[in-house]
């Protein structure tokens, strides 16, 4: 629910999907690989190369989590029509596990992206804010009568001060000023 409250600046513009002919985009065509096995062997083959390992190790050493790389790879594979989005999501654990294997075998320190977050989730924050608002509203209702009395007293004081006789101040260039 809290996702709807967020501003989505990276969302597609309405009608953006109609700016190209239907079927002109790679993801609108039948995917190159349609099964889990075909897609897995495609990825394992490309990830087993030394070039990929070197690049992966460089990126992991920079502090990029493994899960983020897997997300990007899946998104890229879907966008270039290698596989469908659902096959991409299905094989994602294989990508993560294989990259963890590469990272472990290279002996580098890396972030897997699977660690538990210390910060509370957005939903928990939203719940806490709602609770705080409700509690504040109820406490304000209780204080409402007290505030009314205080307001009346304040108005009475203001009226009294207005009714007090004011001394005539000396007017003139040579008059003393306070």
């Amino acid at each position, binding site marked *: 629910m809290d*996702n709807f409250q967020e501003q*989505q600046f990276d*969302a597609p513009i309405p009608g953006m999907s109609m700016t190209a002919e239907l079927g002109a985009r790679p993801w609108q065509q039948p995917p190159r690989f349609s*099964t*889990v*096995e075909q897609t*897995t062997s495609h990825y394992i083959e490309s990830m087993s190369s030394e070039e990929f390992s070197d690049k992966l190790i460089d990126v992991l050493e920079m502090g990029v989590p*493994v*899960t*983020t790389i*897997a*997300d990007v790879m*899946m*998104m890229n594979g879907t966008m270039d029509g290698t596989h469908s989005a659902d*096959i991409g*999501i*299905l*094989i*994602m*654990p*294989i*990508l*993560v*596990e*294989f990259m*963890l*294997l590469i990272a*472990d*075998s290279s002996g580098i320190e890396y972030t897997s*992206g*699977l660690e538990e977050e210390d910060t509370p989730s957005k939903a928990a924050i939203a719940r806490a804010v709602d609770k705080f608002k409700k509690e504040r509203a109820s406490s304000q209702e209780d204080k409402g009568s007290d505030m009314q009395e205080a307001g009346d007293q304040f108005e009475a004081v203001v009226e009294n001060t207005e009714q007090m006789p004011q001394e005539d101040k000396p007017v003139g260039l040579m008059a003393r000023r306070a």
Partner: protein
Amino acid sequence: METRTAKSIYSKFQDLSFLDEGKKEKAITTSGLLTPKNNSAKIDDKRYEQPAYRVAEYVREIRNKREGLNSG
């Protein structure tokens, strides 16, 4: 739109003990000319029709290699 799916999906594959549940151990004879070369137990298992189950098998295989690497 949620675009970070890897963590949530991978966490569902942390526990792969369901792969061993209800597995039938067949006595396979390894000698003889007429011994079947393919493992028919896999073909008979209806769970193999589920892509997620096959993915779990892949994950377990890679994880075993990784754990072997880390322990050894």
